[in-house]
């Protein structure tokens, strides 16, 4: 039994320490997922918390073997619900959120983190120029590292479609990055 499976088993039997550890292990991934969907740090933090609360309540309903894809599916559904609500209400701010957004990583070296910060900003901006479908594909496949089968199940698409869309999304992101910074990667 993997460590995550053991943590989940303990959580289901009411072990509070196991639940705290599970949140600690997955908080960055869920926050990242929410931030890339919502593109607003405050909304993302708030939603990440909601995701964990829902997971806590739904832990009994988790029947599969793979906790991470299930967690991502819960997170994605919440993000989409929130996006729907955000679109239904007037924007709270007038500024362009993609510019100057803070994307702190969990890196232990502050110097390395500062160097990587500009690149993260660039990628974040470039992703903002993609279509929703391509952005979601980059997020699930390239960033979260979910297998194609899981993404196909999550999006209810044939695996062939997911594969071709994923390849296309990578090219579109590369184009978008190069358009913003022609010297990227050189």
């Amino acid at each position: 039994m993997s460590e995550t499976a053991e943590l989940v088993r303990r959580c289901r039997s009411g072990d509070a320490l196991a639940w705290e550890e599970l949140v600690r292990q997955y908080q960055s991934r869920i926050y990242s997922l929410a931030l890339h969907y919502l593109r607003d740090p405050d909304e993302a933090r708030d939603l990440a918390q909601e995701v964990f609360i829902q997971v806590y309540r739904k832990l009994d309903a988790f029947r599969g073997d793979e906790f991470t894809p299930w967690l991502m599916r819960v997170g994605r559904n919440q993000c989409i619900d929130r996006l729907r609500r955000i679109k239904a209400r007037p924007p709270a701010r007038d500024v362009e959120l993609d510019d100057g957004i803070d994307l702190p990583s969990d890196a232990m070296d502050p110097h390395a983190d500062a160097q990587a910060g500009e690149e993260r900003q660039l990628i974040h901006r470039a992703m903002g120029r993609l279509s929703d479908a391509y952005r979601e594909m980059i997020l699930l496949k390239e960033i979260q590292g979910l297998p194609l089968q899981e993404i196909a199940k999550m999006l209810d698409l044939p695996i062939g479609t997911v594969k071709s869309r994923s390849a296309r999304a990578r090219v579109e992101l590369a184009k978008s990055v190069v358009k913003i910074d022609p010297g990227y990667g050189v």
Partner: protein
Amino acid sequence: MSDERHSDAPRDLLRDVLANTSGSPCTQAEERLPAFVDGELLGMDHQLVHRHARACQDCGPLIVALNRLQEALPPLADLSPGPGFAAHVYAATSRSQTPLRPRGIRDFLQGLGQLRRRPRLHLEAGYLGAVVIWLLVLAPFAPMRELPGTVASFFDTQEQHSLPRQAEQVWQVTGEAGIESVRNLTDRIERRVEQSAPARDTLDRNYHSLREAVQDQDPQRSGEALNGMGDGLEGIWQAMTGQADGRDDNDDSEDNDAEAGSSRPLRTPLNEWL
């Protein structure tokens, strides 16, 4: 898009030929770039993309970017939500109204919840109920086959004492006189509510005085206010029972009869019937 092995050819020749024949090869190259970067293209396919990308001003930088993105994207999965996030979530879930329950209860509640969400629950419940009734009452072997006859005879004997039947009898006895009597009763109640207005004011005034006295912690004023409230309540009682006019409820029958002479014949038959 040129090939260095044919450097003698005019620079734009290849582009012009492609433009007038197959069109730009970049679209097809782009489709294969991810597989090229991932090392999945082999043999001739790999060579063709490689040669195209070396010469193409658009596809070359894309390959560089794709290579770099392969390393830069995965770390984006680990963005810190800020200090204290885990503790915040832990506190929120600790306050949750649905703590983890023992396994058996959880399963039972889940099953119940799922049952309630069934779209045809009402239909299924109706069907189940019909089957149960048939088994208990209507089937040839039913243990309660006598039940319908028993219930029917019970209602036959009760029918003459039923509420609709009694209402019908009241109407036959009272007729218009009953309506007039109710109207007089309503008028009298309204009049007495009006008469109680000064007493209600007294009660209200002394209630506010009591609140102020309590806030000021003044026992003497509190006592006076309580006495005033008692007077107000007494006044309301007297007004509503008719004692304010020097009469009490026992006199109402005369008052009623004087105001509605036509209702006099009503009382005897009603009393007799009741």
